[in-house]
């Protein structure tokens, strides 16, 4: 602690105390304090904080400023006219940690509310100390170029909304909003060399980005019909200086010969890494609600979003349609029918590695016989495929897809203390450019859920749910692992013993792409069958305490793979006790235990294979 700072704070406090003591010599007694009945009330808070720290602050004080700072707060409530209110509150612990809000209400016809919050976020710093190893000729090493820096961000969020109901335009409500999120500071940027894990580096990078969002909307409601439209524009801008990664000369780890010159587009240089996009998103949303009285309630929503990466001039479109129909079937039954259709379309991207690297021709290598050629031409000759093209190609997005969902929920309330639910959901994902295990890009999912909630004498609540999910053709990494060994359809080159260094100068050796071509097993972490069970029991014999218990179980498996099976079983149990011995005393204690077991095929890449 800093005694001088506390002395200054005390003097400051006494100085501020003086006029109050002069104005009100009556000391406060034990009479019940009643707030002033004035139309205006102002509150002021002044104070000071100081702290001492030891060790790593990243978790113990991840979001809190703990060094010496004045504490300042101001509140202002005013209701000068009938049905008019103004409320302002702000509190600050430092210029990096503060919050405030403003509300203004004019007879519910014009309302404005704004919130401002700022805080710090300390970020972790990986010393990379676990990445040092040498085995045979293989070396893994790491360099932290910024070892002593404490990384962290200052976050600032401003959110303003206004709503106006014109008195002469019955049924219309106009609204507008603005939100800004800013992040400034530094964080660690990791990078790896060409040889992926051979040399990992860490360095600090400046963070200075902002998301700005503005929206304008109008709502019209009259009788049984409500319509709502909103247009939203959101922009992400990165103002920070870029960060560069260094790429060493690509050499054979044992002989240090430059045998990879034709397979790397750049080496022994620094290039921009982790380049941030600049995003501009415009969204239109139209909603309609029709109350059909005894015929039910119909909700319809349509959404169109155009998202553009302004740095790369790439865009994607999202279209979404949603319909929901609710109908009461007597006093005990309620039926929901719903459907949803989403479509996502990304621009194709033409990749030209020559242009991206500022080269007139592809890098070359000297092959046996003194032939100097580039890797593409060499592969065309070896594979006998003149159409192989590694220099220019069109990237098609794996995210291009349509997703269709439809479902039905049936609620049953047989008594005052019981509620049941039976729901069914069908989902179809149709991917444009991805093929999965069955040779198509379509995954269909059926989901059935049964739930039962029971109360007993207001003291016991028991909520249970049981869910079954069946997925046909879930996402898999096609031929993601498992090398074909002798007896399978190995190419002749597979006679080479594993461990021979791939080298274009020795065409008979096993090449990385040949090893990859030998993989024949589909791998996944997505289940084809799944069952979930959850049960929550709350016993609250009085308003003073309650005991909660919960059990969670999930069994998921995929036995539809071609060479392996995948499964994951999870189990969790928890007990929580809440006690409120009085309005001044609350107490909570709980324990949770979770465990899971996964059986999966693991495939270890060895030397590019």
């Amino acid at each position, binding site marked *: 602690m800093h005694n001088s700072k506390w002395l200054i704070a005390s003097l400051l406090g006494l100085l501020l105390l003086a006029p109050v003591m002069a104005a009100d010599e009556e000391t406060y007694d034990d009479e019940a304090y009643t707030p002033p009945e004035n139309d205006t009330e102002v*509150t002021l*808070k002044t104070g000071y904080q100081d*702290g001492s720290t030891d060790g790593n602050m990243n978790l113990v004080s991840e979001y809190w400023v703990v060094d010496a700072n004045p504490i300042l707060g101001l509140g202002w409530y005013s209701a000068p006219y009938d049905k008019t209110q103004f409320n302002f509150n702000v509190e600050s612990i430092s210029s990096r940690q503060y919050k405030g809000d403003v509300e203004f209400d004019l007879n519910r016809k014009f309302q404005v509310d704004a919130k401002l919050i700022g805080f710090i976020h300390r970020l972790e710093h990986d010393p990379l100390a676990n990445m040092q190893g040498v085995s045979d000729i293989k070396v893994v090493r790491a360099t932290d170029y910024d070892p002593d820096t404490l990384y962290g961000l200052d976050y600032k969020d401003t959110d303003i909304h206004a709503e106006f109901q014109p008195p002469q335009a019955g049924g219309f409500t106009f609204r507008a909003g603005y939100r800004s999120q800013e992040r400034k500071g530094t964080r660690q940027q990791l990078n790896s060399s060409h040889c992926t894990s051979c040399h990992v580096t860490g360095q600090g990078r400046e963070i200075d980005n902002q998301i700005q969002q503005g929206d304008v909307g109008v709502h019209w409601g009259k009788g049984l019909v409500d319509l709502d439209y909103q247009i939203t524009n959101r922009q992400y801008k990165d103002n920070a200086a870029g960060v560069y990664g260094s790429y060493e000369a690509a050499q054979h780890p044992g002989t240090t010969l430059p045998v990879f010159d034709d397979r790397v587009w750049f080496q022994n240089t620094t290039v921009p890494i982790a380049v941030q996009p600049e995003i501009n998103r415009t969204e239109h949303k139209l909603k309609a609600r029709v109350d059909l009285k005894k015929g039910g309630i119909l909700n319809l929503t349509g959404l169109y979003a155009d998202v553009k990466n302004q740095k790369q001039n790439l865009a994607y479109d999202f279209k979404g349609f949603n319909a929901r129909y609710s109908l009461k079937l007597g006093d005990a039954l309620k039926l929901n029918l719903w459907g949803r259709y989403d479509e996502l379309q990304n621009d194709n991207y033409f990749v030209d590695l020559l242009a991206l690297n500022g080269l007139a021709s592809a890098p070359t290598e000297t092959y046996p016989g003194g032939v100097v050629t580039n890797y593409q031409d060499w592969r065309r000759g070896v594979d006998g495929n003149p159409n192989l093209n590694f220099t220019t190609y069109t990237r098609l997005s794996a995210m291009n897809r349509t997703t269709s969902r439809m479902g039905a929920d049936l609620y049953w309330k047989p008594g005052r203390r019981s509620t049941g639910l039976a729901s069914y959901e069908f989902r179809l994902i149709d991917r444009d450019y991805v093929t999965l295990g069955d040779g198509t890009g379509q995954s269909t999912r059926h989901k059935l859920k049964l739930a039962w909630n029971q109360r007993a004498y207001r003291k016991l609540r028991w909520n249970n749910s049981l869910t079954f999910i069946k997925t046909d053709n879930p996402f898999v990494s096609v031929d993601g692992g498992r090398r074909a060994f002798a007896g399978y359809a190995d190419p002749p080159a597979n006679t080479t013993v594993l461990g021979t260094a791939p080298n274009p100068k020795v065409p008979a050796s096993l090449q990385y792409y040949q090893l990859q071509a030998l993989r024949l097993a589909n791998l996944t972490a997505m289940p084809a069958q799944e069952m979930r069970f959850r049960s929550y029991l709350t016993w609250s014999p009085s308003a003073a305490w309650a005991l909660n218990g919960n059990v969670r179980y999930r069994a998921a498996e995929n036995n539809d793979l071609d060479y392996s099976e995948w499964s994951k079983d999870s189990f969790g149990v928890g007990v929580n006790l809440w006690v409120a011995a009085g309005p001044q005393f609350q107490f909570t204690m709980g324990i949770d235990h979770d465990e899971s077991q996964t059986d999966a095929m693991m495939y270890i890449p060895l030397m590019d294979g």
Partner: protein
Amino acid sequence: MFVTDLTYHINQSNEIYFNGSYALTDAAFNQLVNVFADDVPTEFFPDGLPGPGADPNSPLRFSDYDLSPINQYSNIELEQLRLTLGYRLQIFKNMGFFAAVSYWDVEDNQPYIENYSGEVKLLQGGFNWNF
């Protein structure tokens, strides 16, 4: 997880409050158990072929990779203690005093990439006015 929140009114103008929480987070992978397909060539495994019947605690070696310590990387054992003791005094009708002392402590009993152990002692005090 243990959380408590206690407020005691000495009288109408004096109030003492206490917040405390303690959380123990403990998680870890079990050691990987290796099962190989029948057609894996044995010449790639100089230390023998682990599989059904093999000692599950034996080192899992494949070429130069030793997979046996992988489970140790996932160990998490964090203790988090947060205590705050505060006092509020209404000195005059329109003026009050507040003070609080906090102690936060994190013990990282299984540090791996970054040791999260750290502690904070924090003192706050000041005055409130109502106009």
